[in-house]
């Protein structure tokens, strides 16, 4: 297996992009990545998207995206794993380059979510849960994570105000990210007193509905110096993926996301590092409680202490364990299929030292954790400067 590097990244400002279609968004991000890398062709491409069929009535993104990027007859594959479709597209491209099947891979994700109304978006997102045994009975995605939050708070004594520290930190970081959907700060009171969605989670604990795309270019590490143009060379040193039960109720523990635990372990093993070797992480904070749980499950904090750590500022930009420097899904936005590649974009930006006001002092090795549904699938990537 060959070592693989990320040589280009592309994105746009995420948000409610009324005048942009799915193909507009995707092509913009892909072109940005190609230009950033400076490649003159691609050998293969992967498009992560969760549910374009339900959101915009369009499937067959392999053909659509290759066509509108103008790269037919390149081989293209649509990848779907709910909200970690983007991360899984990244992993798929990694595997193809590492195997030697292709040299230059475009990996990407996209979701155009605002063409449907709130009910339509809720319906589309709910397809990531167990349709017959969760959704049928009236549970929603905020409801599933709210049940994790109830369990976590009951077991570990996390308070409502402490949990609010997570979105407050996310908004503080997002305010420094020009690509973020929400670039304004918020307060603990603002989170706690906003509209209740599913007890104990308010609307400010929930990631928004977002239009957006992100892309990255991978190539063999040995070729990466040809595209470095003086920038750091960034190696994909660890990749891990795992699954868990589709229904939350089938899990033995509602305060642990085992797919993330296992995916992280696999990525650490591959990279030959541990949590203490990671400078910062982008995690899948689709809801505030998800950041608390995943920050523990990737090994940043002991189980039951992640929420208190966030409340103590340990995950802030100047904390010991910066998490979601981009603003996370909460503030940067959560165009579901694009999110995993958006995390890669942030890792590369920090590793290159290009993160502007939110740039970390030490950013040599970062981790991205992306998951689908209520954690039924997860993928973890570790990127490092070599």
């Amino acid at each position, binding site marked *: 297996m060959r070592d693989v590097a990320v040589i280009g990244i592309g994105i746009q400002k995420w948000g409610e992009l009324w005048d942009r279609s799915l193909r507009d968004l995707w092509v913009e991000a892909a072109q940005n990545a190609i230009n950033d890398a400076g490649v003159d062709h691609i050998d293969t491409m992967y498009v992560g998207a969760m549910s374009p069929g339900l959101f915009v009535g369009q499937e067959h993104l392999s053909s659509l995206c290759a066509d509108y990027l103008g790269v037919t007859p390149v081989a293209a594959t649509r990848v779907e794993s709910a909200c970690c479709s983007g991360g899984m597209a990244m992993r798929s491209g990694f595997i193809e380059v590492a195997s030697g099947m292709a040299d230059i891979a475009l990996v990407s994700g996209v979701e155009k979510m605002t063409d449907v109304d709130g*009910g339509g978006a809720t319906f589309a997102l709910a397809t990531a849960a167990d349709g017959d*045994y969760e959704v049928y009975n009236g549970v929603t995605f905020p409801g599933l994570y709210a049940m994790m939050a109830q369990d976590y708070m009951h077991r570990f004594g996390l308070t409502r105000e402490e949990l609010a520290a997570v979105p407050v930190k996310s908004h503080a970081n997002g305010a420094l990210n020009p690509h973020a959907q929400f670039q304004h700060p918020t307060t603990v009171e603002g989170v706690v007193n906003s509209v209740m969605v599913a007890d104990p989670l308010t609307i400010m604990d929930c990631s928004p509905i977002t239009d957006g795309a992100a892309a990255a270019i991978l190539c063999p590490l040995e070729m990466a110096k040809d595209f470095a143009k003086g920038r750091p060379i960034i190696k994909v040193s660890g990749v891990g993926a795992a699954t868990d039960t589709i229904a939350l109720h089938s899990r033995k523990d*509602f305060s642990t996301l085992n797919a993330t635990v296992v995916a992280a372990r696999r990525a650490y093993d591959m990279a030959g590092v541990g949590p203490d070797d990671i400078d910062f992480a982008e995690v899948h904070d689709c809801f505030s409680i998800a950041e608390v749980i995943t920050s523990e499950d990737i090994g940043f904090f002991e189980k039951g202490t992640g929420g208190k750590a966030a409340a103590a500022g340990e995950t802030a930009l100047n904390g010991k364990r910066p998490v979601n420097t981009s603003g996370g899904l909460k503030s940067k936005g959560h165009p579901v299929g694009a999110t995993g590649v958006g995390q890669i974009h942030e890792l590369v930006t920090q590793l290159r030292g290009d993160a502007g006001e939110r740039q970390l002092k030490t950013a040599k090795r970062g981790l991205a954790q992306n998951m689908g549904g209520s954690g039924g699938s997860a993928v973890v990537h570790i990127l490092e400067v070599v």
Partner: protein
Amino acid sequence: MASVPGYWRERAQRLRYEGNKCESCDEVYFPPRRSCGIKCDEELKPHTLSTTGKVLTYTVIRVAPTQFVDEAPYAVAICEMDGGGRITAQLVDCPFENIKIGMPVRIEFRLIQKDGHHGILMYGYKVVPV
């Protein structure tokens, strides 16, 4: 998006709570599964969920999907049934402030969804306090 065949196909689970159980590891499956995965090679035997159990965790859904909008706010709980097996179900006939993790509940037969004014009525299980 009601599917008549899809509703009908699950009637043994929706109406009678039929699952199955692995003879080797005692795991109860609801809905029933064809196999206990590759770790157990024992046959799975029919197992009907007990109608009594307890709340493991819960929430109150205040922003509901389209088909449940008229019922919001409503509570949803993950329940462990006595003798094994877990369900996600609405917890009804209980003031929200009385819901507690660990509280005993019992399944009641309820209407779960209606396909508009003209379509089929879809029944199933909810839980109520004991």
